[in-house]
């Protein structure tokens, strides 16, 4: 047996890649090139040799800073480009051919130019804004003045009323009197005005402040400005209000001017004389048109500069990002004693060593270095990182496993089995070939548009769907398969594989649920007979079949998990784990639930009427009693007693020996009894380099080990029951799914169809399709997915998977691209 296993071909997929710890000694002149070639290759994970140094004490800190500065400039360009609204076209990506130093100068020039242009435009825009505001103030204020004069000629009363109305909340009688007195002399006496423009959002507070400061001795006129002013810095449009304040007195003027300043209100002088006003307006208008032309030219120039930058932007961004990554990696390297070489250490998969050496040779050659890069393998105390080579298809499954925990180095990888078992268990819960076809179409669409979608940035939900497209594909195919077995198509049974095996007893029974049917020919060839649908015994029949199936699947999967633990123990050479953990566990599980599975199969094959609950329960309660009518095969009772004894023996077997043997090994090793060790425990020691090494590192604490083993055993014994029960979720969810779809089909669609009304039918159809899409296809998919996930993580992987490794993170340019943003 063991020989057979040893002679099996090596299963590369099952375990992570073999890694080796390598040391590179790179001459300083070719270091940069070597690292960038390695980055393109992406198969070496560098180990940080300067952990104790803070980032700015490292060797290449200046280059990193320069890269940071350059990426800041690039961000500035990008920002400017989006602000200017230039649509960036997809440029064919070229291999960056510019040197970093060159680029730095270029970027600095561009930035300088852009900033200069910006300040120019800003200045122009500011003057332009001022003129524009002036024009609007002239326009509106002229109207105020004009109407003011009219008012005076027509009648003072109305104006007074207005001003009272506008301020009637705040005004007190004293100031009202004052106002009355003053307004009489409006033209001749000291009433003066200030006009200007202020932001719309501030106008209420502004008015209130003016009112308070002048104690109500003022008149505030306002009108919304016609155009919105573009802020020169933020490019946002502000709505503004033109105002005109009438007041008297010198002190009030200084106060009002101060308030204007505080509110960022720009004041403009408006001549009272009408002809003068027209003259000023004309002047302003002519200057405005001049300025507009200059401004336009300036903006055109700026846009041109920006689009020329935009042309190269992506290329530059990639280049800078790569350079920064290279220098960050270089910072992880150490200088050797002579200061002429850089020393780097890291992990790489063994298959990649030749590729890495090639890349290093190329780097040496390209940089005309006299000394080649020295590349050699070293020993490392740390455990190596875990690296699985995946493709589009297996990646999603590996992710599912990694989400629980990254495999320990060289541990057997559950993802291999997950590829099939995961979608299958999902489908057991989601068995409906109609829904399966919907999922299949969805996943096929995602796969067909793979090349297009993979480049785009998707939302988080779509990203998830797209990432799991192959999982979805397999899930849908298995759902169709399971749906055919359950014979459900949106809960409707079909006669696909020939006619039903049952028929009515006589011609009087119209459908299946009135009286019993009789079997008149061979069983339905594939899946559930369609005649079960709607019959009184449909649920008991389906429940029984699905429950038993769940147990069988569960026991099979748990056994697979335990076999994997055997392979792990073999691989890591720990015979202790096989003898005192794997074997008793196998015996325990299979003598109870393996036996149950056997009974199920026998019952299915013989068509016996035995009650399995009864058999199982009384196997524990009174094993010696006669089984009676529930006997399935000859010799069942003695077999049960033997199995029960095995199970009882297995518990102390998995609990006690291991910690005691570990203790013995430990004491032998550390009491200087090396002579004895040669003879007695040589095999054990050689077989268990792992545990021996662990003892070196930490003090052996017997009570801790024992408690640990106790927890482990109890967990397994209790888990054997609860995990088997946990697989019943397969039945429960499949039941829920089929019942839900029956409800939607019968209570919504068929009910609506029974009316002879087009609208009701339409509504029924709409409700049915929404319910199918959102509840059955989305919610149910999600819940079945989660339950399948749980079965894999807890019930399956719990049997063998440690999941405490570290993922292999090679230094690679390809993984850089989405890092930022």
């Amino acid at each position, binding site marked *: 047996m063991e020989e057979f296993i040893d002679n099996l071909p090596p299963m590369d997929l099952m375990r992570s890649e073999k890694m080796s710890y390598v040391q590179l000694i790179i001459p300083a002149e070719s270091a940069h090139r070597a690292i960038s070639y390695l980055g393109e290759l992406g198969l070496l994970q560098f180990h940080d040799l300067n952990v104790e140094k*803070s*980032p*700015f*004490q490292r060797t290449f*800190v200046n280059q*990193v*800073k320069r890269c*940071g*500065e350059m990426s*800041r400039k690039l*961000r*500035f360009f990008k920002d400017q480009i989006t602000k200017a609204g230039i649509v960036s076209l997809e440029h064919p990506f070229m291999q960056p051919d510019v040197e970093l130093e060159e680029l730095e100068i270029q970027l600095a020039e561009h930035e300088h130019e852009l900033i200069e242009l910006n300040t120019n435009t800003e200045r122009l825009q500011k003057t332009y804004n001022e003129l524009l505001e002036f024009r609007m103030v002239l326009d509106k204020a002229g109207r105020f003045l004009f109407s003011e004069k009219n008012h005076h000629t027509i009648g003072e009363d109305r104006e007074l009323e207005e001003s009272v109305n506008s301020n009637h909340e705040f005004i007190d009688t004293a100031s009202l009197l004052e106002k009355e007195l003053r307004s009489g002399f409006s033209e001749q006496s000291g009433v003066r005005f200030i006009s200007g423009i202020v932001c719309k959002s501030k106008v209420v*507070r502004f008015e209130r*402040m003016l009112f*308070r*400061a002048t104690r109500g001795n003022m008149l505030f006129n306002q009108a919304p400005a016609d155009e919105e002013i573009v802020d020169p810095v933020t490019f946002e449009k502000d709505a503004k209000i033109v105002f005109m304040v009438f007041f008297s007195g010198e002190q009030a003027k200084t*106060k009002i001017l*101060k*308030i204007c*300043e*505080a*509110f960022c209100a720009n004041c403009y002088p408006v001549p009272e004389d009408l002809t003068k006003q027209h003259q000023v307006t004309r002047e302003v208008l002519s200057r405005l048109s001049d300025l507009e032309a200059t401004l336009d030219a300036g903006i055109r120039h700026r846009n041109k500069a920006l689009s020329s930058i935009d042309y190269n932007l992506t290329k530059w961004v990639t280049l800078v990002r790569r350079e920064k990554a290279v220098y960050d990696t270089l910072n992880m390297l150490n200088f050797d004693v002579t200061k002429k070489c850089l020393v780097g250490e890291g992990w790489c998969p063994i298959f990649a060593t030749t590729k890495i050496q090639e890349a290093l040779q190329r780097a040496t050659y390209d940089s005309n270095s006299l000394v080649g890069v020295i590349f050699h393998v070293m020993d490392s105390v740390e455990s190596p990182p875990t690296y699985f080579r995946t493709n589009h298809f297996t990646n999603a499954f590996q992710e599912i496993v990694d989400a629980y925990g990254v495999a320990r180095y060289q541990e057997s990888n559950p993802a291999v089995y997950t590829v099939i078992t995961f979608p299958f268990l999902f489908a057991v819960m989601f068995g409906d070939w109609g829904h399966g076809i919907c999922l299949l179409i969805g996943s096929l669409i995602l796969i067909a548009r793979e090349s297009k979608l993979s480049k785009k940035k998707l939302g988080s939900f779509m990203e998830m769907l797209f990432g799991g497209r192959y999982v979805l594909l397999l899930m849908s195919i298995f759902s169709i398969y399971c749906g055919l077995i359950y014979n459900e198509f949106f809960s409707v049974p079909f006669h696909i594989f020939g006619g039903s095996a049952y028929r009515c007893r006589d011609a009087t029974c119209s459908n299946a649920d009135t009286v019993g049917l009789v079997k008149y020919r061979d069983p339905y060839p594939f899946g559930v007979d369609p005649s079960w649908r709607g019959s009184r015994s449909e649920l008991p029949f389906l429940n029984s079949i699905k429950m038993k199936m769940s147990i069988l699947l569960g026991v099979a999967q748990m056994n697979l998990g335990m076999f994997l633990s055997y392979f792990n123990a073999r691989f890591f050479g720990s015979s202790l784990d096989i003898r005192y953990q794997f074997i008793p566990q196998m015996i325990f599980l299979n003598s109870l639930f393996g036996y149950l599975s056997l009974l199920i199969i026998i019952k299915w094959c013989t068509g016996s009427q035995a009650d399995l609950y009864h058999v199982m329960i009384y196997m524990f309660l009174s094993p010696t009693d006669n089984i009676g009518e529930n006997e399935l095969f000859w010799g069942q009772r003695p077999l049960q007693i033997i199995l029960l004894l095995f199970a009882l023996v297995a518990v102390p077997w998995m609990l006690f020996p291991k910690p005691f043997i570990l203790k013995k090994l430990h004491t032998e090793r550390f009491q200087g009894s090396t002579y004895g060790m040669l003879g007695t425990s040589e095999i054990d020691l050689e077989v268990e380099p792992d545990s021996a090494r662990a003892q070196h590192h930490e003090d052996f604490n017997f009570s801790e080990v024992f408690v640990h083993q106790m927890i482990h055993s109890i967990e397994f014994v209790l888990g054997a029951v609860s995990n088997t029960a946990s697989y019943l979720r397969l039945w429960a969810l499949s039941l829920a799914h089929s019942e839900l779809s029956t409800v939607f089909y019968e209570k919504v669609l068929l009910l609506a169809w029974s009316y002879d009304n087009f609208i009701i039918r339409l509504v029924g159809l709409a409700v049915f399709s929404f319910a199918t899409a959102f509840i059955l296809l989305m919610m149910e998919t999600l819940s079945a997915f989660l339950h399948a996930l749980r079965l894999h993580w807890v019930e399956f992987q719990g049997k063998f998977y440690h999941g405490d490794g570290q993922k292999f993170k090679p230094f690679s340019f390809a993984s850089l691209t989405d890092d930022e943003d």
Partner: protein
Amino acid sequence: MYGFEALTFNIHGGYLEAIVRGHRASLLTASDYNNLCQCETLDDIKMHLSATEYGPYLQNEPSPLHTTTIVEKCTLKLVDEYKSMLCQATEPLSTFLEYIRYGHMIDNVVLIVTGTLHERDVQELLEKCHPLGMFDSIATLAVAQNMRELYRLVLVDTPLAPYFSECISSEDLDDMNIEIMRNTLYKAYLEDFYRFCQKLGGATAEIMSDLLSFEADRRVVNITINSIGTELTRDDRRKLYSNFGLLYPYGHEELAICEDIDQVRAAMEKYPPYQSIFSKLSYGESQMLDKAFYEEEVKRLCLTFEQQFHYAVFFAYMRLREQEIRNLMWISECVGQNQKSRVHDSVVFIF
């Protein structure tokens, strides 16, 4: 109600408490400070900070950095966090959060008024104001000539209005007046905040009364030390003391008549919590007092996080961040002016 917060606190306060505890986890640690203290240039500081939560705020700053930019950006981060918390908060937490910023408002009012008194440009002054203490029409403060106008024109709209009742006078503003105004306002503010926290009850009241008492006592000591040798009378000095705290009332009476720092010390050493602070100082020295008080405050603030279901964590977090920004400012100044030997003088490690 004490003891029952666990039942209901999380209905409204749970989310924000989680947020604030998350923010607290991003405070710079002693190892961060050690690294920062080793920086050679301001760019190094920026580089180090870019690995922390301050990164996004500093990354777009062009290279010749100034201390002011660093401080400004760090403050901006605090303000952003404060604002987002305020947006999420419901009563009474939102009022509590509002209270936190009144102190900055008072400082800003004083800053602007003093500035205009010395004929500084208003815009320039506005830039110096703490952004947390900004309110509408703060710029209009420059118009006012005396306290009465100040109140009537601007402050009547602000939450500070009730605190003004004691200092409305028609006297023209001068430095002395303003300083008295600041302390009167602060006194009223602290007392109000104290009352508010007492009203909230529970762990909030318990912890906040401790923190606010400490704050009040610190102000009492500062007022006393600063007013030694000025023309402020004993009664006036006594009036500026907040009417709560560990020193109230007997300590106040003793402090009100102090004539030099050693008398202050003698008065303070009767109170065990302050004895440890004063025991760190040598006789006649008051320079290091600020740092000693800050250290004590940070210790107390950190302790508030040990208890759950109360609002004091928000207060503590804001204070700790401010302390952190003060630290960063000091470090940046020292680095910028090549005074690295003094870098440890005023940095208060938070963790």
